[in-house]
């Protein structure tokens, strides 16, 4: 298998190589991350002080909407799929993904989906402005005309995710090296297997809900229109039936990544491997029966509020098992604090904070106070930024030497970490306070008493943004050269991916390795 990649642009267009496709996914998601980040900075710049300074409220709403959509569907999800493409075949000892040509397709429709979504910014009436949750009737009767393009772009993103998920499941189920039993799989593979099932179950529901919107807007149906006998609350139920599993889609692979990195740098095997697997599966199951905790205030009967409240709190149990296992893995380990480990430890601490504010929100009577305030914004940014984003960053630092054969600059990595860590907490911690004090989310202007905390948050946001430029610079520098990495890269790394050369050859495991 001496032949390498094709030269030129066609390598990337026609490639069926899991490493090429993984890299494209990762670069694409990083570009989207920067773009969505710029939108966040527009939001934070406007909120730096009360009153309207920089943008009009209409444009502000478009920014909050697109920031959410791009970060969820453009940054976090493709980044995880990219990591899955790169690492799952290497971790299970497979020569490539199970369905390489579909893999190519599922990547290459993404740029079209996002071009379509972004093109709405230049349309008359502007881009979607109804929030990333696109509640009807805001997104149907009162939506700008560009909503149709938004709907089709969601359809395409959904198709891409479903194909990606099918590919991952087929790879994991069929392509494992001899001896790689299910309970020997690395946790990243396990969490992705479960995530992929979640994707297949709920992305079609998202496609369904936008299809119903399309029908309401253009074909005279009344799914969400009360005037025609429909019900806007139905939208929220269908959306959150997708939406809640979706938030676990964005965090379960992160659990897997952290469960790979912490044992390496604590120089101890992961504590409680099988409990990690079962905890992941229980979280996935529970994610299907808690959706209405996003809508406690729609007027549910008390029985419903209680059911969704208790079911939601139940999720704290398997999540607690995981946090316990990570901490116990570190306990009495010979820890060193390389950049991936720093990001992983920050993940454990900050994700737990986000989990606790989630528990507060789960209390139905208290949620009436928190609903639609900045407290909610603080909560989900605490689980998504140090949760999903930090774990992806940790994964990139951890596996980058394997991908390109060079060590990244450790000092710059640490600088990135500390800037990001401080920036993140400055940005999102004060949001808890303004939220509890009653500042609603998605507003371009606010009452004077929130000014100080908002100023701090805006400064933190720009710091966090600057940190990402350090990251970009470090990654580009590492890809272009630098100190050669060893095959094992990390002193205490375990797993098949470390048994191959660094950089990983274009074709690996053409002959399946034997797993003992």
């Amino acid at each position, binding site marked *: 298998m001496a032949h390498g990649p094709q030269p030129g642009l066609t390598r990337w267009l026609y490639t069926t190589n899991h490493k090429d496709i993984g890299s494209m996914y990762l670069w694409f998601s990083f570009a989207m991350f920067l773009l969505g980040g710029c939108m966040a900075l527009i939001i934070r710049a406007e909120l730096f002080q009360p009153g309207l300074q920089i943008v009009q409220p209409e444009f502000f709403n478009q920014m909050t909407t697109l920031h959410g959509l791009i970060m969820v569907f453009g940054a976090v999800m493709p980044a995880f799929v990219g990591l899955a493409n790169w690492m799952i075949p290497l971790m299970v000892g497979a020569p490539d993904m*199970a369905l390489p040509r579909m893999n190519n397709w599922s990547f290459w429709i993404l740029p079209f989906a996002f071009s379509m979504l972004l093109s709405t910014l230049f349309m008359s009436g502007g881009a979607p402005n109804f929030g990333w949750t696109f509640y009807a009737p805001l997104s149907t009767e009162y939506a700008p005309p560009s909503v149709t393009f938004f709907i089709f772009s969601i359809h395409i993103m959904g198709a891409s995710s*479903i194909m990606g998920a*099918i590919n991952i499941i087929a790879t994991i189920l069929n392509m494992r090296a001899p001896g790689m039993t299910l309970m020997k799989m690395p946790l990243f593979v396990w969490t992705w297997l479960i995530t992929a099932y979640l994707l297949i179950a709920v992305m079609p529901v998202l*496609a*369904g809900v936008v*299809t119903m919107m399309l029908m309401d807007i253009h074909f005279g149906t009344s799914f969400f229109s009360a005037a025609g006998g429909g019900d806007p609350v139905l939208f929220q139920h*269908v959306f959150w039936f997708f939406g809640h599993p979706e938030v676990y889609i964005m965090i379960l692979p992160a659990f897997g990544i952290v469960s790979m990195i912490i044992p390496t740098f604590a120089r101890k095997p992961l504590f409680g491997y099988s409990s990690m697997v079962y905890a992941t599966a229980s979280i996935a199951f529970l994610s299907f029966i808690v959706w209405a905790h996003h809508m406690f205030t729609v007027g549910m009967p008390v029985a419903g509020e209680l059911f969704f409240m208790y079911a939601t709190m139940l999720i704290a149990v398997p999540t607690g098992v995981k946090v316990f296992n990570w901490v116990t893995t570190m306990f009495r380990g010979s820890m060193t604090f390389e950049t991936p480990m720093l990001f992983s430890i920050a993940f454990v601490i900050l994700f737990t904070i986000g989990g606790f504010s989630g528990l507060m929100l789960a209390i139905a009577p208290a949620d009436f106070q928190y609903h639609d305030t900045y407290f909610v914004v603080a909560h989900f940014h605490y689980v998504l930024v140090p949760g999903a984003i930090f774990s992806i960053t940790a994964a990139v630092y951890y596996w980058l030497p394997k991908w390109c054969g060079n060590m990244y600059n450790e000092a710059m990595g640490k600088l990135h970490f500390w800037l990001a860590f401080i920036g993140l907490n400055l940005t999102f911690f004060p949001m808890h306070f303004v939220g509890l004090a009653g500042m609603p989310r998605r507003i371009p202007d606010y009452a004077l008493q929130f000014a100080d905390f908002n100023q701090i948050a805006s400064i933190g946001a720009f710091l966090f943004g600057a940190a990402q430029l350090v990251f970009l610079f470090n990654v580009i520098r590492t890809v272009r050269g630098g100190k050669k990495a060893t095959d094992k890269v990390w002193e205490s790394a375990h797993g098949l991916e470390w048994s191959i050369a660094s950089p990983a050859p274009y074709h690996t495991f053409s002959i399946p390795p034997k797993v003992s």
Partner: protein
Amino acid sequence: MHRSNNVKVALKLLAFATGMLGFALFIMPPLYDAFCDITGLNGKTGERYQAVPAAVDTERLITVQFLASNNGNMPWQFKPSVMSLKVHPGEAKDMVFLAHNPTKQTMTAQAIPSMVPFKVTSYFHKTECFCFNQQTLAAGESAELGLRFIVDPDLPAGVNTITLSYTIFDVTKRFANNQKNTGQQKEG
């Protein structure tokens, strides 16, 4: 050996995904409607009721309050003729809502009912209601929109007040563009 297995797994998963799409499109909305119907959630009241002779319970006196509101920018004047009525369970009562179209064009409206407490929705019967049909008023025209209802004698004890609210929606465009579609519109 891999190849055929991979295709098999992929097809199975694709079928699952298609099934979930069908579930979202064709099962969730009817399921939601049925659920609301059974539980009375959202205060959706029932469809046209066929009156059955029932004894009037003169022991109890129930207050029925009426509310009217306009959805969005609906320009009609719309209000109940009386704010509330006292009725005996089992007794049929008539009342009217007053509607006036102050605009310069003919408009069509649809009223959507809602009721609290939710649990009484199945004990409140309408034998006639303007909400069963769309109402069309010419420019400047006024109308009395009739409602005839019976409170069921089986109304749970402890309920003394029922609030019936109508929201009126402008469906002029929807009705003009979607003549064929009226069959799909559900009655309140």
